[in-house]
């Protein structure tokens, strides 16, 4: 019975307003268009004009509405009135909150600024927060990179002058073979997804080296189910094969890397392993006709192998010789590594042969002239179309720094760095190796700013932040002998060290957007214990805790003062050129957020609050000469702050007319210009600057002019790392600054100037026999880097997690899906449900991370699956390595201090039948802050269509 079809409005309005801004549902920084009706968000879509996401938007970004209107949004400043952890707060005014914070902080600053530990989590405003910390005068600042990606950042920045993810990306338009290592989901989100789609559409091959076959690995043309923590060894076996079969781009190595540089061989001497240099300090290479001459000589005819006598009589060999000697050794042969990696030798050989075939037999030649730093004109650009990508799965192991360097060495052997089809730098990278001056932090004094950047780049022992006796200067021990290249700090050790008062006690812990009492802690139970611990005199071990968060997270109840933040749609913000901007291989760029929704709560943007606190504390950069505030708010700061003359947080639209790039006077209309441009600025590189940026004269000149790099010199990639050798020499007894005895052997071993592989530290230091399984985590794509668990839509997709293990192993233990099991490590045990699967390395178990929530948090009811079935693997991880001779090091990479989340080993046992089917361990149900309205049972979210 066909009836009349109903009337359909084919062209409904999308709202009354559309505004562009930058997404913050993860760290990817996509451009979005937010459609509004009567001030409410009707629809968020990708901005088609935006260089990052080109109109697409992932599952998180498309669920932003539910984060914007989450019932867990904090509504006013809070002051603790009960015991820490009891969740008893009263709402206070901003005036009172800022008075209290200023009181605590001014006292600390006047007495000993080091006793402020200021740690921000997934902070995209580090160019402000780091600067503020330096102005305050404390060396104790960092964000979440220390437990996320510092192995990749340090491994890349000390090797090739860029890095995976933040400062580099595969040439998605041209690569023919993509090799992805480890868990890499969503670093970064949409560019990788767009890129994989393009690569597969044109018939390229995508191989994924990952213990788990989910996410991107699911669509890989080949899945290589490696054992966790052995990627570096696999990479070095690839290096072995490439060298053995002579599939090495020696011309690339000679031109663009330090392969021809001469290394002094003087075992036992203070110069052993350092570069031979001329009187001006320039590294030398061996020229066949002229002998030792500066490696930067334009017409150098370099030799790569052999041993040579320098004019001063010392012996020196090229870096290439040292590298080839090491990696051609039998220990790196595929046959030797196969069992450790869990990959048959024949397969390793085939993959090496495949990438060599693509690199050398399927090279790309672009008819694109360019000129190199030596003034030589090239008619074409020749590319090796093999691209690597790696991130968290490499990073989260205590051998991750060296594993990352090993990947870069393979890229260099292939000649596959910043060439057509290979991995490419994201401008403003490459930068000099290392890219900046040493870290600030020595000589902290009352009421005095530190000069320089707190998170910066040591070149050797003199740059470490240690006292004369080797004691760490920083509370987290970054840049000490425990973590000499702790470039991102070590947020995972701050509370543990403060609890142990090692190296000293702190007065105020000031945190932003870091869920340290739950999933951001390596051991949440220990963090909770320390935050609630009282000393003999009755005072809390950490007397003051200030926390800024937009939501009622698990950490809120453990703070004394809560400064409620806005959501990402409610504030001005910057993805600053001074921090980690949105540049791509196509050119530098940065972006902003603008407020698209007015807050309906008494909340303030954290950055604006920080600027006001800076003025109240009298920090010089935040105060005018007359003592009044220098900046009205964050927007004012973004526009008018100058880090050096003409250089500010945003590179675009500078100068009085807004026509200057990178360097130019502040432009009062700058933010408006960004808004008019879709909230981003981007400089598109001309084609002749697109590749070989490390040696491309025009690129380097223009980048220098824009203030992005300090000089126009070639950036020579460092296979042999001299800074590491300097640390090693110190450990061998040379120089004034040497590691303390208990760390001497460790520094000598792990500060190897060439990439090495070793069994992850935790696994070396305890008997792993009772714990046969590696245990790792990953975030689902729809939650990665996202405060997702209060999101009403996303939690329907994943509301609880299970422990996945190989079917054969599970069946051998009599386990079936949904069985409850105890997971035990050296550090503790937890209870969860299992699911058996095929696509997982047989010696590995894994789960989705950060799905488990503490009961009551995030305004979820205590019966929510996040609290009853969801679990954190963190509960069986330790922030410490097993103590040795009374000393315990952080469970971290020995070079960078990166948290070694993925080194965990566990056993799995079926629960007794009478055990309660609920997760364990659990803590008391959290009480929401006062006045937070209860969450609705049912949502009928809609805007503007129906009454």
């Amino acid at each position, binding site marked *: 019975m066909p009836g009349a079809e109903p009337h359909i409005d084919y062209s409904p309005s999308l709202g009354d307003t559309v505004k562009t801004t930058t997404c913050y549902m993860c760290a990817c920084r996509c451009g979005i268009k937010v459609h509004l009706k009567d001030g409410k968000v009707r*629809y968020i879509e990708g901005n088609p004009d935006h260089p990052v996401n080109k109109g697409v938007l992932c599952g998180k970004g498309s669920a932003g509405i539910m984060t914007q209107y989450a019932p867990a949004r904090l509504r006013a400043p809070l002051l603790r009135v009960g015991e820490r952890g009891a969740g008893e707060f009263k709402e206070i005014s901003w005036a009172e909150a800022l008075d209290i914070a200023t009181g605590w902080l001014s006292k600390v600053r006047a007495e000993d600024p080091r006793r402020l530990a200021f740690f921000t989590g997934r902070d995209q405003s580090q160019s402000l927060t780091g600067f503020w910390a330096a102005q305050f005068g404390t060396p104790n600042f960092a964000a979440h990179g220390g437990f996320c990606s510092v192995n990749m950042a340090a491994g890349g920045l000390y090797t090739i002058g860029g890095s995976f993810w933040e400062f580099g990306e595969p040439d998605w338009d041209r690569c023919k073979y993509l090799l992805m290592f480890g868990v890499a989901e969503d670093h970064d989100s949409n560019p990788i997804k767009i890129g994989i789609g393009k690569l597969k559409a044109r018939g390229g091959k995508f191989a994924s080296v990952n213990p788990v076959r989910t996410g991107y690995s699911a669509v890989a043309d080949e899945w290589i189910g490696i054992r966790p923590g052995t990627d570096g060894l696999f990479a070095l076996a690839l290096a072995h094969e490439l060298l053995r079969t002579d599939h090495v781009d020696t011309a690339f190595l000679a031109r663009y890397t330090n392969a021809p540089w001469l290394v002094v061989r003087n075992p036992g001497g203070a110069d052993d392993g350092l570069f031979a240099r001329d009187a001006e300090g320039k590294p030398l290479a061996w020229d066949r006709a002229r002998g030792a001459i500066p490696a930067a000589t334009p017409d150098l005819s370099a030799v790569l192998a052999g041993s040579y006598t320098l004019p001063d009589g010392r012996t020196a060999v090229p870096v290439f010789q040292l590298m*080839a000697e090491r990696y051609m050794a039998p220990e790196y042969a595929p046959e030797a590594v196969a069992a450790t990696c869990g990959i048959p030798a024949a397969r390793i050989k085939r993959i090496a042969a495949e990438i060599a075939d693509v690199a050398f037999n399927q090279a790309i030649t672009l008819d694109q002239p360019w000129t190199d730093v030596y003034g030589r004109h090239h008619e074409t650009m020749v590319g090796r179309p093999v691209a690597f990508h790696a991130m968290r799965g490499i990073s989260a192991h205590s051998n991750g720094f060296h594993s990352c360097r090993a990947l870069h060495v393979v890229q260099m052997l292939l000649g596959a760095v910043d060439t057509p089809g290979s991995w490419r730098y994201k401008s403003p990278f490459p930068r000099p190796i290392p890219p900046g001056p040493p870290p600030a932090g020595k000589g902290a004094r009352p009421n005095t700013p530190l000069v320089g950047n707190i998170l910066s780049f040591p070149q050797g022992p003199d740059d470490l932040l240690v006292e004369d006796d080797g004691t760490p200067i920083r509370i987290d021990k970054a840049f000490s002998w425990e973590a000499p290249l702790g470039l991102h700090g070590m947020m995972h050790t701050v509370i543990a060290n403060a609890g142990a008062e090692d190296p000293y006690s702190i007065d105020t812990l000031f945190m932003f957007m870091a869920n340290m009492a739950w999933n951001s802690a390596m051991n949440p139970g220990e963090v909770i214990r320390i935050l609630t611990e009282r000393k003999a005199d009755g005072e809390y071990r950490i007397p003051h805790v200030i926390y800024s968060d937009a939501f009622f997270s698990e950490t809120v109840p453990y703070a004394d003062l809560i400064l409620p933040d806005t959501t990402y749609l409610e504030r001005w913000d910057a993805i600053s050129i001074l921090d980690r901007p949105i540049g791509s291989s196509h050119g530098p760029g940065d972006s902003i957020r603008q407020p698209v929704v007015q807050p309906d709560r008494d909340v303030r943007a954290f950055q604006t609050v920080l600027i006001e606190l800076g003025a109240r504390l009298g920090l010089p950069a935040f105060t005018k000469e007359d003592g009044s505030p220098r900046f009205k708010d964050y927007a004012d700061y973004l526009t008018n702050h100058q880090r050096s003359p003409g250089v500010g947080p945003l590179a675009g639209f500078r100068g009085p007319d807004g026509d200057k790039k990178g360097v130019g006077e502040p432009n009062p209309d700058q933010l408006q210009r960004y808004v008019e441009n879709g909230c981003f600025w981007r400089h598109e590189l001309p084609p002749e600057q697109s590749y070989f940026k490390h040696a491309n004269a025009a690129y380097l000149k223009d980048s220098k002019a824009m203030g992005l790099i300090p000089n126009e010199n070639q950036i020579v990639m460092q296979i042999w790392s001299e800074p590491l050798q300097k640390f090693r020499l110190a450990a061998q007894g040379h120089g004034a600054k040497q590691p303390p005895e208990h760390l001497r052997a460790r520094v000598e071993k792990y500060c190897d100037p060439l990439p090495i592989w070793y069994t992850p530290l935790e696994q070396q230091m305890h008997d792993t026999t009772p714990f046969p399984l590696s245990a790792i985590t990953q975030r689902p794509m729809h939650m990665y880097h996202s405060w997702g668990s209060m999101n009403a839509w996303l939690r329907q997709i994943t509301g609880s997690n299970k422990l996945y293990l190989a079917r054969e192993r599970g069946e051998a233990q009599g386990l079936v899906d949904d069985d409850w099991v105890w997971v035990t490590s050296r550090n503790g045990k937890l209870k969860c449900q299992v699911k058996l699967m095929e696509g997982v390395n047989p010696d590995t178990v894994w789960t989705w991370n950060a799905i488990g929530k503490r009961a009551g948090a995030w305004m979820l009811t205590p019966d929510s699956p996040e609290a009853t079935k969801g679990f954190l693997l963190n509960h069986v991880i330790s922030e410490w390595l097993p103590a040795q001779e009374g000393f315990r090091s952080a469970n971290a990479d020995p070079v960078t201090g990166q948290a070694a989340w993925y080194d965990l080993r566990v056993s799995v046992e079926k629960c007794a039948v009478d055990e309660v089917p609920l997760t364990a361990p659990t803590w008391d149900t959290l009480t929401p802050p006062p006045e937070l309205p209860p969450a609705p049972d049912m949502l009928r979210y809609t805007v503007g269509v129906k009454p």
Partner: protein
Amino acid sequence: MTCLPELVPGQKKLGLVIDLDTCVGCQSCATNCKEWNASGMSAPLPDFNAYSAGAEGVWFNRVHSYEAGEGAAGKTVHFPRSCLHCENAACVTVCPTGASYKRAEDGIVLVDADKCIGCQLCAWACAYGAREFDEDEGVMKKCTLCVDRIYNENIPEAQRQPACVNSCPTGARHFGDLGDPESDVSKLVAARGGFELMPEMDYKPVNRYLPPRKHVVPEQGKPVEDAPTALDIKSSLLRFMDKVLTR
């Protein structure tokens, strides 16, 4: 019983082509569909127990992940599921009130909420589980193929596509006229061996799925050269001694 429109020569059949080779299961289609349609012509899409146990809402797109095959030879598949806008739409013919109907002009299957009595016969009839019942309003809802987007003059022409297609980051979703053999989507289906779900049911779904591309992974490495049992490092390096590398 509701009638289906008669097919005419050159019948327009709007639908989706979904590429299982590149779907990474990111849920973009699911949540972007949800936010568009939450305020679209079938608004709202309620969420029950939104912040407690048993959370479950109305979604027009759902992505299922599962494994097929055993061991390393198996695959992990992300399978997006939504209405397939069948030619023989049993959900339409079963409808007692005419609420469920298939449009003659483009083949989109829709529900007229004013006529729907919430009997849910259509949900039982649909072999693909694509119907979504709004318990709160007591009416059936479903994918509209974003009929309020694809003809919407307030949207730039390039984005006049279903929300799920517009947002898909890997480009795994395509929209077009599968009744026109010359359309981009029809050509894509032909080139990639696109298939229909459960053809044995004879519902004649319009949507097509593209199978994973076949990449032959050789079992063994091709013999590069025999693996030496012991490497002579010195002589191996001699090869490199002879290379003089002029910049």
